[in-house]
């Protein structure tokens, strides 16, 4: 167990290093922010001076080494646009706005998938199956900004302000963006639960359980679902990256003050510190959650043992 964790940790460190390295060089390929720091009348010399003040005129490798040195301290420098510590800004937007949204849609997309998937599997190829699958596919087949705008029009305008059209702060604000973000992973999870169940329901131990006279509901929820949960967990772990970055568009539509919008607006402004800090946080969360997923396997499926 300890060796596993150690290896996993090293692996995680490597991935995070890789991501920050890629982002470091990638953003520098897009030019530099000195154009934003001078006025419209600046001469070439003044632009060069602004670049010098930012330290962007030094050799790339010097900047890179310095950057790597400051990452472990959590120091990503000062935002060029906002002139505040970049990491502080990123964390302000991550917590609570992004965390809330990601968590809520994670819960929605997994918790709702179970009953829908179960209904699908137990009524295979009958109306409820078609309904649940078509319904979830339908949600998945719309671009999220489109779905979001439709929900706003429906709930905020036509239903007389049943749910707020913008902003964050309460569960009522959370409903529409979370549903929009959950739409695509939900469909996928319904499929996974369904196919997982169909497969398990044919297997010996389930037949045995049935033969022992256990109720169908108990069979499904105690035995079969455990098995079906594994692919859901795997795919969810991987789609968390999507949850975090797919949120970018949903944050714009719903005026949600999250991390995605912060980072996306930082790219055209060439606000390197904010982009780097934001992508770093994305990567850390992604890696951490995937370690968590590995650990979850052992809980859900006793057959999986950590080496």
């Amino acid at each position: 167990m300890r060796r596993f964790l150690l290896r996993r940790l090293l692996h995680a460190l490597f991935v995070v290093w890789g991501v920050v390295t890629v982002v470091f060089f990638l953003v520098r390929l897009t030019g530099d922010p000195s154009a934003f720091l001078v006025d419209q009348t600046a001469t070439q010399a003044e632009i060069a001076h602004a670049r010098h003040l930012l330290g962007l005129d030094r050799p790339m490798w010097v900047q890179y080494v310095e950057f790597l040195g400051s990452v472990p301290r959590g120091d990503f420098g000062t935002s060029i646009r906002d002139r505040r510590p970049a990491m502080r800004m990123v964390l302000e937007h991550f917590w609570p706005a992004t965390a809330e949204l990601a968590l809520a849609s994670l819960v929605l997309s997994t918790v709702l998938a179970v009953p829908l998937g179960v209904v699908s599997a137990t009524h295979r190829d009958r109306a409820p199956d078609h309904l649940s699958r078509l319904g979830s596919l339908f949600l998945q087949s719309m671009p999220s900004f489109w779905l979001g705008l439709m929900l706003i029009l429906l709930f905020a305008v036509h239903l007389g302000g049943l749910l707020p059209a913008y902003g964050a702060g309460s569960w009522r604000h959370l409903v529409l963006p979370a549903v929009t973000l959950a739409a695509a992973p939900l469909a996928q999870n319904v499929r996974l639960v369904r196919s997982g169940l169909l497969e398990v329901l044919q297997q010996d131990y389930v037949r045995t359980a049935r033969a022992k006279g256990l109720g169908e509901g108990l069979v499904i929820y105690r035995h079969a679902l455990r098995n079906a949960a594994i692919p859901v967990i795997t795919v969810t772990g991987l789609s968390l990256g999507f949850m975090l970055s797919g949120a970018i568009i949903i944050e714009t539509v719903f005026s949600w003050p999250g991390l995605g919008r912060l980072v996306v607006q930082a790219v055209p402004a060439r606000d390197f510190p904010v982009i780097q800090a934001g992508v770093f946080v994305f990567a850390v969360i992604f890696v951490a959650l995937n370690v968590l997923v590995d650990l979850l396997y052992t809980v859900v499926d006793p057959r999986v043992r950590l080496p």
Partner: protein
Amino acid sequence: MTHWTASMLCALTGLTLALAPAAVDAQARALDGVAIDPDAELVVALADDTNNMDPRIGMGSIRSNYIRQVFESLVDVDSQGKPVPGLALAWKPVGDLAWEFSLRRGVTFHDGEPFNAEVVLFNLDRMFRRNLDRWGIKDVAAGTSFEKVFPFVSRWEKVDDYTVRVHTSEPSATLWDFIGREPLVPRAWTTKHGVEALNERPIGTGPWKLVEWKRKDHMSFERWERYWGNPPLYKRMRFQTIPEAAARIAALRAGQVGLIEAVPPLDADVLKAEPKVQVSTAVQKLVCRLYLNGRPRDKYDSGGKDGLFTDARVRMAFNLAVNKEAIVRKIFNGYARVNASPVASVSFGYAPQEPYAYDPRKAKALLMEAGWKESGGGWIDRNGEPVNVSLLFPAKHYGQAFDEMTTAVVEMIKEIGVPVTVKPVDFGTQLQVLQKGTLAPNGAFTACRTSNALDADDFLRDWTAFTLINWAPYPPELLALFTASRRELDPAKRLKLLADLQRQVRDWAPVVSLYQEVKIYAATARVLRFTPIPELNMDFRGVALRK
């Protein structure tokens, strides 16, 4: 009326205002016979949050809205965009080489610091980057480098506690404007907490003090009870960021916000027809243009080629090829205006110019005159080389109507036989191309320009130094005319020079002038007396909320 008597008149009215702030007294419970709620909150939905509150960093169209609620300048504007006394009661030239500002008394910053001549001197030091070490404050990379743009401003001094004099090395007609419109920050507070604190917890003299700022979400203000003018007629205000226009309108219709900005032109007419919504508009100091590369080869990074558009006839041809009336009427639904002058129609010194006719045939003829030739397939050659315009535009930066307009302009230019390749880029990329001067010789771009100044000078300056929006430098005779207008202190003579310059610039056509924006606001019926101003910001003084 000469200029300084005008400002003296302003001084008088300012004085009456100061003496009798009882047009609507602070205890007012009614306005125009309607009961109002002095403890209410107004939620205003804006398309974007500001990323900075320090006025020195820049006063773009987004920032101004936030900054001007908290900070004020020496010169204020009325609802018509005319200068009125702000923190200065009057301003006047003293001889040819100095201006004197008489300051308002009894003004305090939100932390209690008094406003006086020392504060103004400190701000001047900061604007012109002098004595920063003495004040112990850091320099900020600023939006406007006063010491470069106005190098003729030589020194400033305190005459008494409420009088400041600014000296110049040559006559300057517009000093009251470029210095007077800059928002002023407190001295003691800034030197104590540092310039970063201006960004985090700004302290100004404005009618609203900032109480909470949750970035990219909202900024909350509270009425500044000791405001020198009439304190606001409601207690709290919240600027809510809602990027999507559809969501802003939805929030207004649902009554979740009281006022929204940047209403798309077509929605304006729909909202107008709704009984519970009031729509108001104001012409903006925002002019949008198609810039064409007319720089000589040694003035940009071209690989040794002159810009394709150095010939004024070619630029004029493009002006004639674009049907601006149709763009304004159709794409902007009438909520924009055609303006052939390089100066915004609401600036002081604006002289209306004869519109460029929409005449594709004449446009083509002009191109032929300039040596462009028709080749096979209806397309045009120049010196045997096929011409192809490479057009950059900052997609999603100025709003959807702008993006649509750019596509329409491209198709109109193709109509006269000039092929165009459109390259949508993010705003940052466009800015870098222009600043580094790496625009292609056949390059062009669409962009909009704003101004914080009240005088036409700010617009006419565009083709002097090589800046990122100067792609067709003034020929010597126009440059001479511009310099003369700058130094002319006699208002009547100066207006004449300005009008003359505008006419010549129109004929010389440095850019394809496309349209001047009209900003559209919508409010619920609860909002009383909201009047949009032709500045970049909204002014909520005098606005009230129905009980």
